[in-house]
């Protein structure tokens, strides 16, 4: 696994001696360990100034901190499979990848990574919410990729241990990463689902910058499935291109060839969308992106998306292609539509 080189590592003084912090520090590359700065609170620095998003390319810092305030939040409507309550918990901020449409570019005022190490409190809160709302879903990866840094944080084992005790609750780990070595060593649980975002080969290469190519993602999915892990898929965001229907036909064919589509827990579909703030940042950061070729327009909720007619056309086309490949209709849902 490639080690990410952080320019500086900021650690909150009060958690320096916490076991999880020490473990993370010990797994950092030597060069990053030479640039550790001890601080009172990550909020004294992170988000204090507007740090340009693209500085993540050559000036990325890591903050190891304690998450205060709300640790588990209810997810918005249409976030996951309907009929159940969905929550996400906050274990870190920001992502090492650089997907051109990513909403994180307009969300935090810095691309720096923050990893929270007070897992005991986060786990306690998950337990309490799970008790209050049996059968709920919990999602990691709302503000970060769930697996990309898991070799550094070592958190995967903790999640499995926790959700073994909560068999009625479900955990979704959203990712584009192929960092599955740790996962392959863990005994699978039916209520822990690794959900992979997959896009067409062209989008993985030219839009999901710095992410693993499609064939590597599919290989990771296959290995997890073979190990007995539950896997979900997000065909989200679907992005228009002059050959979008052919490209998505190929994608679905590839999925059906390379992984066990019949064993997939669910598949979510979504079309590219931006809030106004994120769209403004996207235009500034990626003026030459192929996403601009699509007919993006302001929608009913002020978000920037394709016109409804085009969205429906694209979603139903991909849905039908999946059904044609024997995916059960009830396992496919539209995300944020």
């Amino acid at each position, binding site marked *: 696994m490639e080690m990410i080189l952080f320019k500086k590592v900021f650690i909150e003084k009060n958690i320096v001696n916490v076991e999880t912090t020490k473990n993370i520090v010990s797994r950092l590359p030597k060069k990053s360990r030479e640039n550790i*700065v001890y601080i009172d609170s990550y909020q004294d*620095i992170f988000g204090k100034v507007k740090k340009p998003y693209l500085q993540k390319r050559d000036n990325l810092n890591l903050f190891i901190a304690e998450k205060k305030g709300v640790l588990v939040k209810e997810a918005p409507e249409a976030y996951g499979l309907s009929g159940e309550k969905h929550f996400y918990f906050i274990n870190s901020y920001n992502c090492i990848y650089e997907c051109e449409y990513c909403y994180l570019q307009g969300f935090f005022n810095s691309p720096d990574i923050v990893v929270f190490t007070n897992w005991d409190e986060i786990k306690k809160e998950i337990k309490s919410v799970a008790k209050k709302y049996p059968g709920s879903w919990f999602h990691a990866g709302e503000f970060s990729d769930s697996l990309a840094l898991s070799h550094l944080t070592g958190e995967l084992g903790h999640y499995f241990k926790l959700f073994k005790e909560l068999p009625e609750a479900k955990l979704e780990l959203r990712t584009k990463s192929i960092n599955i070595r740790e996962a392959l060593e863990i005994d699978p649980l039916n209520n822990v689902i690794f959900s992979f975002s997959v896009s067409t080969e062209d989008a993985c290469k030219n839009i999901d910058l710095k992410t693993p190519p499609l064939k590597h993602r599919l290989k990771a999915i296959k290995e997890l499935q073979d190990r007995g892990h539950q896997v979900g898929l997000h065909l989200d965001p679907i992005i228009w291109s002059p050959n979008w229907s052919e490209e998505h036909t190929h994608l679905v064919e590839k999925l059906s060839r390379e992984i066990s589509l019949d064993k997939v827990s669910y598949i979510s579909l979504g079309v590219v969308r931006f809030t106004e703030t994120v769209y403004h940042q996207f235009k500034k950061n990626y003026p030459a992106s192929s996403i601009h070729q699509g007919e993006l327009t302001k929608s009913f909720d002020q978000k920037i998306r394709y016109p*409804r007619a085009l969205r429906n056309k694209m979603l*139903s086309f991909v849905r039908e292609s999946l059904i044609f490949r024997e995916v059960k209709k009830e396992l496919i849902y539209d995300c944020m539509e």
Partner: protein
Amino acid sequence: MLLLTFAHRPEARAFLGHFKRLKSHPRQKNLYISPEENLGLLISGEGFLQSAMSLTQALAICPEINYVLNMGVAGALINSLNVGDTVEGKTIYLGKDAKAKKMEFKSFPLKPFCKNLYSFDIVTSEQRALTQQDKSYFSHFGELIDREAWGLAQAASMQNITMSSVKIISDELNDEEFCQIVKESAQKFSEDLLAFFLENTSSNQYQKKVSEKSELEHYLSSHPRLFLTTAQKNLLKKYSKKIKLSEQMIDDIEQIITDINSKRPKDLSKAIFEYIEEKYSPVTYNLGRFGKTEILKLSNQKIKFSLDPLFETSAIHFSGNISSEKDLDLISSTLTKLPVRKWDSVVNGDDLV
């Protein structure tokens, strides 16, 4: 025109000596202009407020300025930078009060000036005297510290003018005698900056840019049969980001011009714009055209129809008034003509190819 800015005269001395045609501007003390060389020089003064005011005034006096290059000395906030190193700024932050951990939120990214230089983030400090603790806090945000760059960047940004910053390191992280070092070495720093400038700046780098028109803009705005309004010119700029002029498009445009009955340039331009709009937003354009020809055209003096302008719903709105049975009959018969099912299917994308 390129405007060089320095906080203090000693930093600018070598430049004033070299560019002999720079003449003091009668309306602003410390602003020097050489129209022949397409060059200006401003001694902005110290402090972000002072520098912002000086540059704002200079830009108002000389609208030809289209590039600002801030030059001068900066302190190092990291150990690896040594006195005399020439570096450039990447992003500028404003440090308000290190003890109170106060930073200004707004920052300004700079345009890279020279490929061969290492670039670092600059913190412009509001206060002059800094302790090691102050430097330590500011070092979380940048590697260089100065007293003016943020103010200059704010003034330049307000007028949408590009700015770069090239700095020479005047004091290292652990130096205490900051002012003393700068004073003693000012002449040397100025000469080094001038040498760097002469070596790395070609005159065409800061020539006034001719507004770059896309091929589509150029083709349409110079077409002898067309007349574009200002609104159309602005729209064309937007369309040009997505639509590239092709031979097929040229043929289509010429065909439209030939086919249309009217010879008025305004009518011809309107028809061409409809064609371009269809290329730019094909789905929305076609929904609009269907709505117009199949629904809105049914409006009459008794009932008026309108549609969701975003075409996010297929709801058809109408308003009208009934004063007699005849009105009722007219409205009823009009309503029965509405292609409700077809419209719903069009808005849902069922008919899209």
